[in-house]
């Protein structure tokens, strides 16, 4: 296990451009200049909608594809060297298994590629697969297959675990079990980076969230702060008809206010700083019957990713 507080992953000016076979589309900038440091022992969520560049970024970290420009270092090494040294492992999104092998055989096969693998029984136990050891992969459920990928990732005793949308296709219970197993690994000091488009997963599991949109990092920090920054709240209050236009004009001019609308005698204010708006409305502005609603996580998500959209 790592002990020194060094960078696990260091990305500098990372870019990946694909050329589409369709000449009308031309070049696609999947990753458009990412700088990122992930420190040893951190648990980081890479959050973003489909097409944000999460998978492409992780593919470069794992050495599956080379950057068009910029650099990737994993524990100060290039990704291929880190993979060959067994320092980095990943749980693949889908596929990656031979359907005609049993769970046991799959673990045995991947173990044989490592110079000093963790005992097969131990990783099978840890991934909760003991009951299905003799089962063929093709007759395992989606959740079991995903836990098998997880078991394979543990075999090399990696310092860094990369998970790309690890709970895709799992039901709620499988998802909870999966994250419980992952927490146990994190407690041993492994660095864990996972891509997800579920805000809830980032909130429940990651202490730090990196939000990506359109191939760029649009927010990066402690998960609750990222969410708070992203989440606008809606303050509504009743204001008398004769003053409503004046109040609206005053609020629109404030920092952090995204919109102010009037609906059936009530003022609706979307803002980052709901406390300030509430204070003003209840104080000098003379509002009554005030309500504050937190925007849903999904709204927050849309809000933040839209911020990263150049259009």
């Amino acid at each position, binding site marked *: 296990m790592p002990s020194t507080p060094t960078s696990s992953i260091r990305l500098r000016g990372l870019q990946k451009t694909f050329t589409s076979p369709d000449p009308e589309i031309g070049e696609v900038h999947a990753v458009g200049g990412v700088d990122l440091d992930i420190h040893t022992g951190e648990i980081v969520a890479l959050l973003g909608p489909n097409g944000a560049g999460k998978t492409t970024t992780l593919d470069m970290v794992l050495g599956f594809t080379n950057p068009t420009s910029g650099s990737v270092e994993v524990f100060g090494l290039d990704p291929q060297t880190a993979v060959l040294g067994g320092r980095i492992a990943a749980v*693949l999104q889908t596929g*990656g298994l*031979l359907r*005609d092998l049993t769970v046991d055989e799959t673990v045995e*096969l991947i*173990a*044989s*590629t490592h110079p000093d693998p963790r005992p097969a029984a131990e990783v099978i136990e840890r991934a909760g697969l003991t009951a299905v050891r003799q089962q063929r992969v093709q007759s395992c459920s989606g959740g079991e297959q995903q836990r098998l990928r997880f078991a394979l990732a543990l075999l090399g005793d990696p310092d860094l675990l990369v998970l790309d949308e690890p709970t895709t296709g799992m039901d709620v219970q499988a998802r909870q079990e999966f994250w419980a197993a992952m927490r146990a690994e994190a407690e041993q000091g492994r660095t864990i980076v996972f891509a997800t488009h579920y805000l809830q997963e980032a909130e429940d599991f990651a202490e730090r969230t990196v939000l990506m949109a359109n191939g760029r990092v649009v927010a990066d920090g402690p998960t609750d702060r990222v969410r708070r920054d992203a989440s606008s709240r809606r303050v509504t209050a009743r204001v008398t008809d004769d003053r409503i236009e004046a109040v609206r004009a005053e609020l629109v001019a404030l920092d952090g206010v995204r919109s102010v609308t009037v609906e059936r005698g009530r003022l609706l204010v979307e803002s980052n700083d709901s406390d300030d708006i509430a204070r003003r409305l209840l104080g000098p502005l003379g509002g009554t019957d005030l309500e504050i609603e937190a925007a849903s996580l999904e709204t927050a998500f849309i809000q933040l990713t839209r911020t990263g959209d150049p259009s």
Partner: protein
Amino acid sequence: MTATSLDAAPRTTSTLNTTYYRLELRRVLRDRVTLFFTAGLPAVLYFVFGASPEYGSEPVGDGNVAMWIMIGMAAYGTVSATAGIGGAAAIERMQGWTRQLGLTPLRPSQFVAVKAAVAMTVASFPIVLVYGIGFVTGASAPWHVWLISIVVLMLGAMTFALYGLGFGLAFRSEAAVSAASGALVVMSFFGNIFVPLTGWQLTLAKFTPLYGYVALARRALTGGNTIDPDGGDLIPEALLPVLLNVGFWTTLFAAVTIVLVQRSRGRQ
């Protein structure tokens, strides 16, 4: 092959990963249908066309017709076997298994070594079976003909592992890999494998992928001749066109496979 336990798995990078090899072989043996088509069918074909008929004992070079047919049927079996292994590798790649291995310390050269060893082993099944039946049912030739033909069959079969791999990479489906194996039957006919061809069919045959392969495998038997089906006599055949045939198709399959592997890498 010794059975290794998990704890005794090889850990050096220079030797063959015998655990992987053993598990791959187990996968092949589980697939009974493919096994029948690669080993059982050529054996049956030989039994029907080579061992039973009276013309089997007619002389060909230093041996007999049964020997000539036996080498052909074994050739069909070996190419089916290696094309199947190559095609399966393409399907594994499509299903992300190559990515999974890409996350382990296994080097690509070690992967290729395991697959080549498996292909060689599986290619030997039809040879052992067909040659075994041939041996006890009257195929005859001097011992060096048996030996040389086996070596040529084994080495040449690798070309068709590339054929299966290329087909699978190009069409990216299991059905395509089955079609590739099916096409080998047609190619075998036009490769002079099942029956001695004549006239325009023979002229055409000399350009098809399996012709050079089987002609080389039978060369020790025929002593540089080919069977004239009209009279059953041997007529001389130049070595150069046969070598050109093998060289051309091997180069083509290898080049196509390399291009396709590079393209699929770019797509990942």
